[in-house]
């Protein structure tokens, strides 16, 4: 039995206290981390519900339904934030990453409670792999959403396209990590290498595209 609601309460409580005690940017960091964890919890409910309707088991749903549900759920809080608060472009990019971090953290903790924490090397790879994958998908959507289109309708169409690309990237990751041995290792490695590439050259690319 995996009590994800209990885990959520345990992880969300310090963040809620942090939201109440801190101000401005620090408060926003906590809010978006909490949003990431909340959408992760909701995604698991929605994925399970759709899988039950479609008659799929957990392994089928993890490569077919979960990537689409998780990617859509991850961008919803940021869409809400953009629509309501009309923030600066630079701020939004960071908040998308915070949601991704919150999402990956909650997913990792749930995975640990289900699979144990004995093998530190595997956990190290798994932790970095999952974190990197969610951040890559977030960065992909953020780059398109903020830097590539000026008009709102072009931005909307482009973001939908990038959401589809992020879903496929997530799907590829889930296919590989649901295997054993070298395939799973390659699965964890792909987002880590993509993140390394993003860290090294991403800033140069986004700066050039902005100008």
């Amino acid at each position, binding site marked *: 039995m995996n009590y994800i609601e209990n885990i959520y309460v345990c992880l969300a409580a310090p963040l809620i206290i942090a939201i109440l005690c801190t101000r401005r940017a620090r408060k926003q960091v906590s809010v978006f981390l909490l949003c990431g964890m909340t959408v992760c919890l909701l995604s698991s409910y929605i994925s399970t519900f759709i899988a039950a309707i479609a008659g799929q088991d957990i392994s089928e749903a993890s490569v077919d339904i979960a990537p689409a549900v998780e990617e859509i759920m991850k961008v919803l809080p940021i869409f809400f934030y953009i629509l309501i608060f009309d923030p600066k472009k630079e701020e939004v990019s960071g908040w998308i990453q915070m949601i991704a971090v919150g999402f990956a953290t909650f997913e990792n903790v749930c995975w640990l409670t289900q699979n144990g924490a004995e093998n530190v090397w595997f956990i190290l790879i798994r932790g970095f792999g999952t974190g990197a994958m969610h951040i890559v998908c977030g960065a992909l959507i953020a780059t398109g959403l903020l830097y590539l289109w000026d008009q709102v309708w*072009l931005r909307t169409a*482009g973001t939908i*396209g990038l959401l*589809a690309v992020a879903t*496929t990237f997530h799907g590829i990751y889930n296919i590989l990590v649901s295997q054993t041995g070298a395939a799973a290792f390659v699965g964890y490695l792909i987002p880590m290498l993509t993140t390394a590439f993003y860290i090294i050259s991403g800033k140069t690319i986004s700066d050039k595209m902005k*100008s």
Partner: protein
Amino acid sequence: MLENALNIIQMIVACGCMITAVYKAVTYRSRTWMLYGMFAGACFLGDLWWMLYSFFYGLDAPDSFIPYISWDAAVLFLLLILFRFDAEATEDTSKKYLSMAEVAFFVLVMCLIYMQYGDYVSNLITAVLMGTLIWNARIRLIRIPKDDAEDRRKRNICKAVLLYSFVEYALWTASCFDYDSPIRYSYYVFDFLLAVSIAMFVPALGKAADR
């Protein structure tokens, strides 16, 4: 076996085009090249998902929407490339609507045929996107004059889009036939031509997208 080999060729071509496009996008600060990179990236990820799923789960045609949304996203990015090349309306209104009706009729008939073999929703989405893409390429080909080199390059992009659309429809139609049918062999030819048509955008975009 042959299908897998062609899939690998297509993936290599799409990956090569994506790297070329990102390099050109950064070098020339061109959003059009960036969009083409996204198109090639979406094609690559869709193919990769399909191949990995077939390999690990042993299915010839995976019953999932994920690769299809990636390929639909690729069409969406092509459409966004076309929208970057605006052209003044020089034709009669009647001619414009006639052209629109012809394209709509074609994609609707093909959609109804494909619905006999696949699901309704994804075929409908693909038909809407392909119809919009073909019509926009066609109308721009009529509107953009052949006067100078810049316009000729823009026309080449429209021709490349139409070539890609033709090969896609030919491929989908050939895939409707049984494996023992002689027409089915044309599927492999069009599968190879699809890789060629993806690569054709590199010379077609050329300097038209450099700035």
